[in-house]
């Protein structure tokens, strides 16, 4: 446990970095907390950037985790916009782009990811966008006001969320995807195929098994995309969402172990015991999956942050949280919990035709994960069963009459509030 004279430096002020700072104070850590972010904004949430925040009425302040005053009150020293350029591990100091050097007793790397930027000809044309930051979203939102046709490269979560938003705004949308189906690595074929059909029925055009050869333009502005098969797809707004890469350069330059992510142990500690890595940039051993994983999600960021903050505050415990995720694509809501592998097979609960269903993933007899479509109650129930170490047999999962909640391990009790005080105030 670090004392009141110590200093924790957090590099990265996204969901994981912000949550670490907030959780350190919640856990009673009394030392200095320095939070370094490379964007000019107060720390903010990214999930809405591909959804509600693309709509005209969006306001940046609604994205902020906390207002300005919070940081002063909690003595969180926000250095933004600034950026860590080097870690001096021997001296335990972080060098910032501004020239400041901050000594740390513990350093938390929450450097996140950045979108992959392909080397296609035309990538620099006006109207070609990647989406990661609030500034990216602002530019796309402005472009959506005047665009006539939208081309989205990559049928991942970002691509499909933006496709739904642009489609709902009345714009024709074409999604180009290299694989034979959307979300190939993330979802079962059953769920992905259903999503594909749902988007198609809302007017989105898909070009699957299709690669981009070049982005075309005139007068510096994008006019469309040419595929490797020679087909031309018209569009004056092109969004590229073909995945991300973890920001590991700082860690790598400091000599920390890196392997598509900063490598950490079960306590989220890097190869240097004075440095942790968390969130999208960290590759950690999961108790829910064979081998190490690197996950990109709110849950992963928040739970990692809480775990590291608790450890610094003197309450260490191996990280064992169950991953979960959601994606709102217009009126389609996909939720996942657990971690599946592509080879896992599936048990369907309910039918896609009914408008809501669940895909349960099995590795042998082990329930590994569940994907739900417009079915939040089943998502939450299965999530709690898995988190509590429980399971469902294939027969139970497939039986619509089986009450999932009855498979809940008895330890997963629900907290009850204290009875209201007798003098509970009533409305005037």
């Amino acid at each position: 446990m670090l004392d009141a004279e110590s200093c924790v430096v957090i590099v990265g002020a996204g969901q994981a970095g912000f949550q670490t700072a907030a959780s350190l104070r919640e856990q009673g850590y009394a030392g200095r907390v320095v939070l370094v972010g490379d964007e000019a904004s107060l720390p903010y949430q990214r999930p809405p950037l591909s959804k509600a925040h693309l709509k005209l009425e969006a306001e940046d302040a609604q994205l902020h985790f906390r207002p300005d005053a919070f940081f002063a009150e909690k003595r969180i020293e926000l250095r933004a916009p600034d950026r860590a350029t080097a870690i001096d591990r021997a001296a335990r100091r972080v060098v910032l782009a501004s020239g400041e050097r901050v000594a740390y007793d513990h350093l938390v790397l929450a450097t996140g990811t950045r979108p992959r930027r392909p080397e296609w000809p035309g990538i620099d044309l006006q109207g070609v966008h990647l989406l990661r930051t609030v500034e990216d979203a602002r530019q796309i939102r402005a472009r959506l006001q005047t665009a006539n046709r939208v081309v989205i490269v990559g049928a991942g979560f970002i691509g499909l969320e933006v496709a739904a938003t642009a489609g709902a705004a009345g714009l024709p949308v074409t999604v180009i995807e290299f694989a034979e189906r959307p979300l190939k690595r993330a979802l079962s074929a059953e769920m992905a195929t259903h999503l594909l059909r749902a988007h198609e029925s809302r007017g989105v055009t898909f070009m699957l098994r299709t690669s981009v050869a070049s982005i075309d333009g005139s007068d510096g502005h994008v006019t469309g995309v040419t595929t490797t098969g020679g087909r031309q797809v018209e569009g004056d707004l092109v969004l590229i969402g073909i995945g991300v890469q973890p920001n590991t350069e700082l860690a790598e330059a400091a000599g920390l172990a890196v392997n598509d992510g900063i490598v950490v142990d079960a306590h989220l500690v890097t190869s240097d015991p004075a440095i942790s890595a968390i969130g999208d940039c960290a590759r950690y051993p999961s108790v829910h999956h064979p081998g190490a994983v690197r996950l990109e999600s709110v849950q992963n960021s928040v739970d990692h942050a809480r775990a590291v903050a608790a450890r610094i505050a003197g309450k260490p415990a191996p990280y064992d949280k169950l991953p979960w995720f959601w994606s709102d694509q217009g009126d389609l809501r996909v939720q996942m919990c657990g971690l599946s592998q592509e080879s896992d097979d599936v048990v369907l609960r309910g039918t896609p035709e009914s408008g809501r269903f669940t895909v349960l993933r099995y590795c042998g007899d082990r329930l590994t994960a569940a994907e739900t479509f417009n079915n939040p109650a089943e998502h939450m129930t299965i999530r709690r069963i898995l988190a509590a170490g429980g399971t469902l047999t294939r027969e139970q999962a497939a039986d619509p009459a089986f009450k999932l909640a009855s498979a809940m391990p008895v330890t997963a009790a629900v907290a009850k509030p204290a009875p209201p005080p007798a003098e509970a105030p009533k409305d005037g």
Partner: protein
Amino acid sequence: MPQITYLHDDGSRVSLTVAVGANVMRTAIENDVDGIVAECGGAAACATCHVYVEPALAKRFPLPTEIEDEMLESTASERRPESRLSCQLNLPAGLDELIVRIPPVQVL
């Protein structure tokens, strides 16, 4: 100006002056009211901004959507008839004070 009052499980309370239409979750977050976690940022995807609306006032709000209703089935603290996700509650006009009780835990 109307108020939102948040009652904590330990009996403490905080009252905030707000505009009509203020979101009950955002108001808590912006004023650092303990006990509203709001992990998903208001998408009704996490059930960690659970509140108990003072029963007499519950009918002043539109009924929960199907998604909210289902998420409420899995709150970390007991669901009660007056349970809501505060991210889905905007202060209606004509109410001087909205009182919500914050449950003992939001995260399992």
